């Protein structure tokens, strides 16, 4: 066993994939010598060279579109969008080209889009968003959102080997966090299988990405109060493993869905709707969502904290749900 940061695990995984398959290459802004804004690709250019770790101009739409064309022609590009907020510039190519290639044209588009969502660092409203909701309802795009280093490696491997466009979320608060992992890289983790990271009978907590990380911490604290929470880490939003969620809801009857992005129109609403449709008779209380404020993420520390769901908020909501 060893201790490794989320960032380092991603880097090791990318290196392994670059070694394994010569058609895999990376593209993004400042990913070469600079090593990426969050250091994920640091040093990779030394082993793999500037053609496989390709710096680009600031051109998110073209980066996405060029990667799509290269993918359809037979390469396996992994592009980095520096902050998830910038993905809005690439939305047209991802939605109107990448997502349509297999269902409409019958062609494969093996593209991975890596990007860090999330606030908590005071970066401000255009460097802190969680925009997975923009893609969660677009048929044809898969979404993976690891909450720890081991899952990050397993999911990233699957993403790179998948022949579909995959949005891969690396929450920026997770990057420096150290995790205990085995010495070897894990095997690829299949998409569409949510993980019950902690069993419990009193309530179900559903989350992804950094909120799943926070949920684990919350569950430990709740246990000390005698509340046994079942924590489900989605791992992937698309495909969504609603079966595992429903089964848990049928057991606990009380569900708390966590989401960092603004509450209105978020993916937690989709999950709540599906639970309502499939487990209604088992629910003791309506599905509860804990999400961010319906306001752009402010920069000042106290303002930002007030707009993002905290560990304290999870505990309060969980206690109310089981009362």
């Amino acid at each position, binding site marked *: 066993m060893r201790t490794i940061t989320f960032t380092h695990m991603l880097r090791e995984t990318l290196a392994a994939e670059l070694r394994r398959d010569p058609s895999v*290459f990376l593209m993004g802004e400042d990913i070469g010598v600079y090593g990426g804004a969050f250091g994920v690709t640091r040093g990779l250019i030394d082993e793999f060279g500037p*053609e496989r770790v390709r710096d*680009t*101009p600031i*051109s998110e*739409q*073209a980066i*996405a*579109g*060029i*990667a*799509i*064309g*290269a*993918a*359809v*022609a*037979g*390469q396996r590009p992994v592009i980095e969008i520096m902050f998830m907020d910038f993905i809005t510039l690439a939305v*047209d*190519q991802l939605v*109107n*080209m990448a997502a*349509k290639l*297999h*269902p*409409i*044209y*019958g*062609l*494969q*588009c093996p593209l991975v889009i890596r990007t860090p969502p999330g606030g908590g660092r005071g970066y401000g409203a255009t460097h802190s968003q969680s925009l997975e909701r923009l893609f969660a309802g677009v*048929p*044809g795009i*898969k979404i993976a959102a690891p909450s720890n280093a081991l899952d990050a490696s397993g999911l990233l491997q699957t993403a790179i080997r998948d*022949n*579909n466009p995959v949005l891969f979320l690396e929450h920026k608060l997770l990057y420096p966090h150290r995790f205990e992992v085995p010495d070897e890289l894990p095997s690829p983790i299949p998409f569409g299988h949510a993980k019950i990271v902690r069993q419990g009978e009193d309530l179900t907590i559903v989350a992804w990405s950094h909120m799943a990380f926070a949920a684990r911490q919350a569950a430990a604290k709740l246990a000390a109060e005698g509340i046994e929470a079942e924590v489900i880490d989605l791992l992937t939003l698309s495909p969504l493993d609603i079966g595992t969620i429903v089964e848990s809801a049928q057991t606990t009857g009380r569900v708390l869905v966590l989401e960092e992005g603004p509450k209105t129109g978020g993916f937690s609403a989709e999950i709540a709707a599906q639970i309502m449709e499939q487990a209604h008779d088992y629910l003791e209380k309506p599905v509860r969502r804990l999400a961010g404020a319906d306001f752009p993420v402010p920069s000042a520390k106290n303002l930002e904290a007030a707009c993002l769901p905290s560990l304290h908020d999870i505990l309060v909501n969980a206690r109310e749900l089981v009362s």
Partner: protein
Amino acid sequence: MDALKAYSLMLTIRFFEEAIERLFLEGRIMGTAHTCIGQEAVAVGVAAALEPRDAMTTTHRGHGHFLARGADAGRAMAELFGRETGYSRGRGGSQMMMDPAIGFYGANGITGGSIPFATGVALDAKIRGSGRLTVCFFGDGASNQGLFHESLNIAALWRLPVLYVAENNGYAMSTSTRRGVASAHIADRTAAYGMTGRSVDGNDFFAVRDAVAALAADIRSGKGPALLECLTYRLSGHSRGDPRVYRTREEEADAWKNDPLLRMEAHLKSDGLLSDAAIADARRDAQARIDAAVRFSEESPLPDPASLRNDLFA
């Protein structure tokens, strides 16, 4: 591709497009389509200068490019009829057809949407060292999209083997090039990217073919991407049902005198390659091909909605 074959292809495209306009009016096909009547010399002139290994992307106005590249008129027509035998099994319609077997990567219906795609196919060619040229068709309107500029900048920086073909047909829907494009020519925009830009008479098959051949040779030899602006005129409206209130009937009548088909026929006649009788035969044969394509489409089965269920992901 010899001149007679090129002429035959131009006729095929013309009659295909005319058939579509008729079929819409008759209510026999639904949805929308954007015909390229008057622009056949661009499509066939470019195709004539390419090799089988080359790749091509197009725009919403892409039937001509697709047919010139070697598409089967029956399968293309069937796609417009929404049949299972269509290139996209009825799912894509006019604007969303691809056929990698002939290196054709179509369009997606977003103006300029394929410009970065073509640039990416060229990147793949560069990575493989395959010598494959990618031709990227787009119009005057698309040259105003941000991704046009982003893509040309990157193609020039990375010296990608792509030929951007700006089909300047005078109009972006109802907006004339005069009112839409700030530079006098789209080819002028290449200076900003350190890229070769040329303009050519897009209604002259031979001029287009020769210009493409020269630029293609340069691109294949590693000189980097280039842009060829083909000056033509969109004789049809933007899409079906366009009342064309933004231009005069006099302007159109003038443009019809410059019809690339008439110019091709005149050229071939003066070269002694075609007689009037041969022209009539060629036209009749092309019309027969299109009629057969329509029959094939009408006899093809409708796609089954159940087939959609498991096809979202590869």
